[in-house]
């Protein structure tokens, strides 16, 4: 691994935002391609963050701080990636279902997906089914992710999937679900394509759909 790339990787892993930014700028200045800096520096580091989270070596704070460092580096790279026509891994719509204001889980998933190279369209919280449908209609969406924290709002996941079916959009997008009361069995029952118990696994799941 290139020394600068290695220092980006290390800075992201330790959540050092300032060093990440400095090293990304240095990497750009040294002639490394934005795609390589993104893939080998930032995304590789976030993949390792995900692994450490799944293994219980990292917890939410470490994941959060690393994602912030990654984002700081990505801010520098974004215009360069656009100029060199580097495409994101895929496009993901995220939202907490109608009637539910909880956003922590969704925000963590957003960070990990961005860290995996996805473009995120975050619809926020209390998102009605028709808003999800409209977002899918806009085109180019690979994955739709829904979150719910309450057993009383979880049924809105099925309502949203039904709305996608009614709009004849169900085949155009993979639907993944998560949240405290949601289980794999529930995801299967409502016709979701996948379930993830945490943010890191949500990123792995989304990657499996676009790989």
């Amino acid at each position: 691994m290139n020394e600068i790339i290695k220092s980006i990787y290390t800075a992201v892993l330790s959540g050092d935002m300032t060093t990440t930014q400095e090293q990304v700028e240095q990497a750009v200045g040294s002639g490394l391609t934005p795609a390589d800096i993104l893939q080998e520096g930032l995304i590789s580091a976030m993949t390792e963050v995900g692994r450490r989270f799944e293994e219980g070596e990292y917890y939410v704070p470490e994941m959060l701080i690393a994602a912030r460092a990654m984002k700081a580096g990505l801010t520098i790279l974004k215009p360069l990636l656009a100029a060199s026509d580097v495409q994101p891994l895929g496009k993901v719509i995220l939202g907490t279902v109608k009637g539910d204001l909880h956003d922590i889980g969704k925000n963590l998933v957003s960070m990990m997906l961005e860290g995996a190279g996805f473009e995120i369209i975050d619809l926020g919280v209390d998102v009605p089914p028709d808003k999800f449908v409209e977002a899918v209609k806009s085109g180019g969406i690979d994955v739709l992710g829904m979150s719910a924290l309450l057993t009383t709002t979880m049924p809105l996941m099925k309502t949203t999937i039904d709305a996608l079916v009614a709009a004849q959009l169900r085949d155009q997008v993979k639907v993944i679900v998560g949240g405290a009361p949601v289980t794999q069995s529930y995801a299967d029952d409502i016709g979701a394509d996948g379930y993830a118990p945490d943010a890191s696994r949500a990123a792995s799941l989304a990657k499996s759909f676009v790989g």
Partner: protein
Amino acid sequence: MRQRVLAVLQGEKPDRTPFIDRIDFWYKGRTQVGKLPLEFQGMTLPEVHGIVGMGHQDWDYPYAIKYKKLEIILTFEGERIFQEVDPEITNFPTLWGWIPIDKPGVTTTELITPVGKLSFQHRLLKESISTGTTRPQMISHPIKDLHDFKIYEYIIENSEFVPRYEAFTHREDEIGDHGYLVPIIERIPFQHLLIDAIGELETFYMLHDNPKEFRRLLGVIDEQVTDKLKRLADFSAPYVEFTDNLDGFMTNPLLFQEYVLPAFQSYCEILHGQGKKVGDHTDGDLKAIVHLLPETDLDVCESFTPAPTTSCTFEEAWKLWKGGPIIWGGIASYYLEDRVSEVEFREHIEHLLQLIGDSPIILGVGDAVMSDNDIDRVRYIAERIENHPI
């Protein structure tokens, strides 16, 4: 039911395992949407508890805090609804009981002090009203940046303890013997900052970026909590409970060991010295910290919500907590949902009761009986327990 709870808390054997929890979400939600079963229509919540056979658990604060040199202003959807100087508040800054819960909307709270102003917002959705979970969600928190720390410190430092023991006793009498009014005390300092004052994710940024200021504020809150707990010596209750909504996903083992464990140990020492048993509202996912809870000196983990609602199974908590804390809760509300068959539900209850035997536990539904739950299953559990003396 109260006697059964007290027996368990005092290490004695009750005649039946106490089965006591909340069905207010179910009751309010069903009432709101006109789906309260005919047999319960016209009944009060305590009457419903009586018919169903599950003890009536409720909470109240035995004290308030007077916040001196503070002006509080509440605005609901742009209209000023409350203004007071030197307010007495039982739950700061969650302000349950102050934020409107009868209509959806955003409530903005301003806290004005001589050293600056803080503001934060709660939001209530119409769905929260119709499902009975009328608890407005904090969508922004009082502390947003470093400058806000000193204002928050000022508010905490200029506060004084106001006992409301008579009001508590009056409510206790209202609840009667079929229930238990739990005297609640505020969150411990770390949970206070994490959930109320700063917010979860923002706390982690603050802790990383400004650890010195964070720890200083923790210390200020700790002094206030310690003082309050010492004053509770005059309050003759056998049991008090912290309202931490503890969750091992957010308060992970590292944070727990650094900030939570020492606080519990110190506070339990004070309260045990007053002859009180101590519990904590632990309704989150405890998987990551289940092994650490016995070290806290807590006597009860209340609202314990096992798998599949969380990733912590009843069996692992039961095994690890043999020497305490006692479980209050233990039946995931998942088993009261129609996605679980009647057979699976009954098998689960039998499995739990066999596992428990005559060991101490206060059975309940974690976190609560929800509006979409089957009340007949609650009744089944109550009858099953009633028909089987210990």
